[in-house]
């Protein structure tokens, strides 16, 4: 069984927790320290897909977050099969920017698939979560596999987000 390599990107505004999600997924750790990613950081993890026992080598591109002054370098997204588009549940504007990120990704990679991760669920009260999830649902787009609430700190749904994305990438 040959290992297939796939490039995936994490896209979102700055400080929404992209790097934390990757660190949680790849290294299994979480740190409160905030470090801005400059340019891009690349990590790699081999994911074993259960039903087919297929192996997929995820090359994860942690892309510098979008700030007011700087848009994401589109070239970094090129050639990606999948993306996790991340928003910060505690900051509404980051959620407002999600459609723009999604559009950018599918423009660059029309055949790609994506998962929307609403991150930092640990600092949001439960009753608000369901409401926020309803408000930010991109289920209408067939290329968006699902919208999922995550927490890198509490390790909520992090592996699931990556694994489901990986599974859908192999299918596509």
């Amino acid at each position: 069984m040959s290992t297939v390599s796939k490039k995936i990107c994490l896209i979102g505004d700055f400080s929404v927790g992209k790097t934390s999600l990757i660190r949680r997924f790849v290294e299994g750790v979480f740190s409160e320290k905030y470090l801005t990613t400059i340019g891009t950081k690349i990590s790699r993890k081999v994911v074993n897909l259960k039903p087919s026992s297929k192996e997929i080598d995820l090359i994860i591109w942690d892309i510098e977050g979008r700030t007011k002054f700087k848009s994401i370098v589109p070239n970094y997204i090129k050639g990606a099969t999948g993306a996790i588009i991340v928003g910060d549940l505690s900051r509404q504007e980051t959620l407002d920017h999600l459609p723009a990120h999604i559009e950018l990704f599918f423009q660059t990679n029309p055949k790609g698939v994506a998962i929307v991760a609403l991150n930092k669920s640990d600092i949001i009260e439960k009753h608000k979560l369901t409401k926020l999830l309803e408000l930010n649902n991109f289920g209408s787009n067939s290329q968006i596999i699902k919208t999922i609430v995550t927490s890198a700190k509490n390790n909520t749904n992090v592996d699931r987000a990556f694994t489901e994305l990986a599974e859908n990438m192999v299918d596509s």
Partner: protein
Amino acid sequence: MPDSIDKLIDLLLDVETPVNPTNSEPASSPKEQQSLLTKPEKKPAFLAQKIPSTVESKDSVIEISHETAADNNNTEPNSTEPSLAESETNLAAIETPQPIEVVEESVAKVAEVVLDDRIQAISSAISSLKEQNIQETNNNGFSTDFVNPGIDDWILEKEARLNELADSLNNLIPLMMELLSVKVNDSQELILQTMIPLMDRAIQERSSQDLDKMSLAIARILPDAIAQEIKIEPKSMGKAIAPELALSIEEQIRLDQDAVSLALGSEMGKAIKAQIELEKDAMVDALYPVIGNTISKYLAEEIGRINQKVENSLSREGISRKIRAKMRGISEAELILQESIVCKVQAIFLIQKDSGLIICEVQPDKEHPLESDLVAGMLTAIRSFANDCIISGSELSEIDYGNFEILLEAAGYCYIAVVISGQPKPEFRDRIRETLSKLVMQYGDKIENYQGDTSTIPPSVKLVLKDLANIETDETSEANQKKSAPILLWLILIILASILLPWGIFKYHAVKSQRITEKVAVQLDNNPQLSVYRLQSQVDRKNITITGKVSSSHLRNLAQEIVSEIAQEEKLNLDNQIIAVDVPADPTFTTQEVTRVSQLLNQLTGVGIVSDYQDYRVTITGFILDTVSTETVTSYISNIPGVKQVVFNVKQELPTVDTRIYFDSQESEIKNSTEAGKIDFIKRFLEEYPTLNLRVIPHSDSKGSKSFNQKLTLERAKTVYQTAISQGVDPNRLEIVSEELFPPDVTPDQPLWLSRHVRFEPFIPEKTLP
């Protein structure tokens, strides 16, 4: 409450009276103090009077009056009236002993309570009392009505006095301060002694009361204090801090790691420098295990390579390096070093341009493989970044880091990244380009549609990349060896040829000239005239050179004739360098020569000569039977050095000998003395013609048988021969020849006796050289 006030007021009032005058006078301006000095006659008396009273009443006040006196004492030397001042001093001297003790005591007390606090406490007590009093009066308004106006008046009165008291106290404070300071100045020791036992307690107590304030108070002086202490006695300070230093640094590191590094960092360089200056060896020792190993390992490798280079210094590579070094204007050693840092391909990646996924990779170094996915991703990101943000549309072609270099070469959907250690040759980039174009041409679509599944890429791609990796590494060693082998062979061949060919030609010529020389020598030697001379011949490619000396130009020409024949055969030019020297010939030599030549000539048939050499003239006598021989003899003899004239006294015909010795019939003995006398004639003939010999020819008559006659004639010849020898004739000069039995000149009709004889016939003998 009024009671307590009363008590206090009373207490203070006792003090008040004596205080006032002192208060107004000494506390006044320095000018007034000066006036005090000018009028000492009144004041000392006053003061002296006051002191005892003050002592009794209140400690703090006593001090004042006493100190004023003391002050006056101090200023005494300046006084204009010494006598008065003296009396005053005396007074003071009498008075002081008692008060001083009291003063000390009081100072101790003051110190104990801390003067400031005490005064403050008093004033605050007073004011609080006042307030309380007023409040009380207000609150109990109804009662005041009752007691009014009596109490009112009382209060007013008390209040007035209280105010007075407060004023006086206020006035007192600065004075007390000054007094205290003067006292401290004056008798430091005493104060110290009194204060010391209390000091620690005071601090302790104060600390327990209000830690913050105490800390604050100490804090202000602490840095200065420490600085002072360090100045005064740095060692003890060091000792005091030392044990905790390590601990405190440890703690600080735990708290904030960066701060310590930051603080030390800037000084680290200087510190190391200083240490190196101070003790170089220690520093070297300390660093050796780290740097030493690294360097020695590196050097060992490098020196190995350099050795190899030096060993090859005489090879083709070495020579070409010398030339290259000259052309580039750097030393050969530098070039060697540059070349010894071997250029090695660490890894080759074929990467999809957009996704940064590895299409194919080759990593020859299996020990430390690079994390290819991450490297590829990062390179792609860097490329994208450079493309987007720095110069759009341009390509990143190489990344340098230390001794490593990443060469990048991009095509449509992919790019190739070669990680190289060392300095690659410029041609290597062309090779990368070739490889990439080959890959794109053959597998372009597969690369374009690459989805991260390496199984979709044919294995030949890897082979192409491996080829690229191999070429560079092997290029320096194997390729050169392959190239250099035939070249070396050729070189050897050329060298051999260049040595052997001339040698061969030389050898051939040498052999040839040797052969010719020998031939010439033989020919020259064969010539009887030239054989005595030492003539030498030299043969080079074009010429035969003959050198030597002969005694006449004739001999020179003779030699030339002989050699020129050989020269023509061998197609060479003749260079005749023989010198004809007209030497006055040695007569002995010439004589011998003439004799020798004559003997040689006598071997010719028909030549029987005797040469006589005298005074350069050769007289030749004898027989030369034909003219050709005469010429030969003439030329030979005349060419003998030293011979200038040849006199021929030769006969061309042999003489005839008519003498016949007759015998009786059938007898072989000489018959009588007449016949025997004819032998003498023979003897004389041979003496006359020394070059001639005689044949002894016997004959017989016709009587008797042939065999008998044959035997008889031989007997007769022998008889003559023996008789001649017995008479002294050289036997070699006689030769018995038996011819016809009958003599040719006697006819049968003549008498028989005529036929019975032995006749003689002269001949030139065949002579062998002696």
